[in-house]
């Protein structure tokens, strides 16, 4: 009795209770004595009543089914066959067995799911240390002021050609003059500040010529430019021992893309 009392709480339904009773008998579901099983089940229901426990409708339905099976079992075989013929549906005994077998399988499956559930609690996914790649946003190597000036020059040149074919460049200064001038200044060896090159410029055209000359020298790898700090002034220095400039290049041949490479600009002033 006390055993039932304890167990009652965990029975999920009449099938669960029946499986419990079968298991207690230690027989296969298929070999179970349904008459005996019916008696035990009803006995259990009676006990529930005694304890004033609320009995779920499903238990009562099952009890009546079992009573019916039990009564049939007690009939002589001949009469039983007749009854069977009158019935439309399945043999209730077989129907109950089938239901129990199926329920048992899912109860077992539920136990296996529970095992998986418990196992998952012990499975820890690898949560790696977050990787850190150095931020690769463009730095000053990507665009240099020289690229920019060079671009201005390209615009100016094209603009002139397009709109003012008749205008003639005021030839007071030539790029070759300025190249020579810069080479001369740089021969002294020390690095000079970018602005120094333009200090004595008298006109726009002179500035532009000087600038183009500078670009050309950088392109020819005679000079290097750099900044010692992010906001430092641009400094120009000799790349190495002065190599005589062979032919004076034509300024327009200084294709922008050739003028500087990031490496050139980057090189620190020595």
């Amino acid at each position, binding site marked *: 009795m006390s055993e039932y009392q304890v167990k009652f709480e965990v029975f999920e339904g009449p099938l669960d209770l029946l499986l419990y009773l079968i298991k207690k008998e230690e027989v296969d579901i298929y070999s179970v004595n349904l008459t005996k099983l019916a008696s035990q089940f009803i006995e259990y229901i009676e006990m529930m009543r005694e304890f004033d426990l609320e009995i779920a409708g*499903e238990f009562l339905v099952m009890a009546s089914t079992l009573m019916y099976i039990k009564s049939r079992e007690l009939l002589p075989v001949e009469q039983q066959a007749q009854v069977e013929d009158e019935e439309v549906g399945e043999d209730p005994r077989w129907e109950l067995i*089938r239901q129990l077998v199926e329920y048992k399988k899912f109860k077992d499956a539920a136990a*296996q799911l529970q095992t998986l559930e418990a196992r998952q609690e012990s499975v820890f996914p690898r949560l790696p240390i977050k*990787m850190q790649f150095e931020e690769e946003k463009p730095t000053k190597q990507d665009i240099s002021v020289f690229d920019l000036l060079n671009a201005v020059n390209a615009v100016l040149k094209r603009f002139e050609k397009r709109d003012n074919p008749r205008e003639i460049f005021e030839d007071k200064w030539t790029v070759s003059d300025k190249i020579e001038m810069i080479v001369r200044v740089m021969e002294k060896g020390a690095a000079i500040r970018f602005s120094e090159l333009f200090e004595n410029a008298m006109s726009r055209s002179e500035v532009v010529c000087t600038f183009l000359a500078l670009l050309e020298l950088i392109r020819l790898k005679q000079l290097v430019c750099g900044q010692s700090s992010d906001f430092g002034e641009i400094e120009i220095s000799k790349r190495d021992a002065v190599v005589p400039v062979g032919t004076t290049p034509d300024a327009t041949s200084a294709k922008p893309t050739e003028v500087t490479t990031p490496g050139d600009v980057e090189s620190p002033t020595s």
Partner: protein
Amino acid sequence: MELKFILESLLFSAQKPLSPPELRDIFANAAAVEDADATVKGLKKTKDADIIAALEEIANEHEAAARSYRLVCVAGSWQFVTQPEFAPWLKALVGVKARPSRLSQPALETLAIIAYRQPMTRAEIEQIRGVSVDGTMQTLLERGLVEQSGRAEVIGRPALYTTTTAFLEYLGLKRLEDLPAADELRRIPIEKPEAPLTADPGLATAAPAELKLEEANEKPAEAAPAEETAQ
């Protein structure tokens, strides 16, 4: 460079499980980088099938290496996990996993029925369990382990329920086919024996020889179709 090891390094470094399509996208993105080298570019259009084959190879290798971790596939996505036996120390390291409370017995039974027989109507589930499943269905739906997935073409057009991806994740399953004893449970061949049940009172109802649980495995073909069409 072997595809296998690239995939391994990715899963080794990922903060979440990755699916073959996600991995394929990574290959494409890596190849789109300006200075991508020939190897990186060459793997631009790696096929899902090749990725899956390589992943399975890696998983097998780690299984064979029998170290403290494995590469597993859960619900189609792959990740490295540690073996459960190291849980005591991992709990000390990362703290107890934040996981919902374990499912109750009724909920597990209901879930099992849906998992193996999906899609199922509520009435079909109740037929098997022999009790109402209103409360447990509510729990399962709230936890996102099952979902409604259409309606049955019968009178009343009752809702049909199936399990979700979260269900696979919750139990650590690769796919539904990996449910334990899936074949057997999906098509339980419970046949009425040919010989009539004995009518002798007090005797066993069925002819036991005909109806052994083990035999279910031996003759699945006859009963199977009826069960499987329900899926």
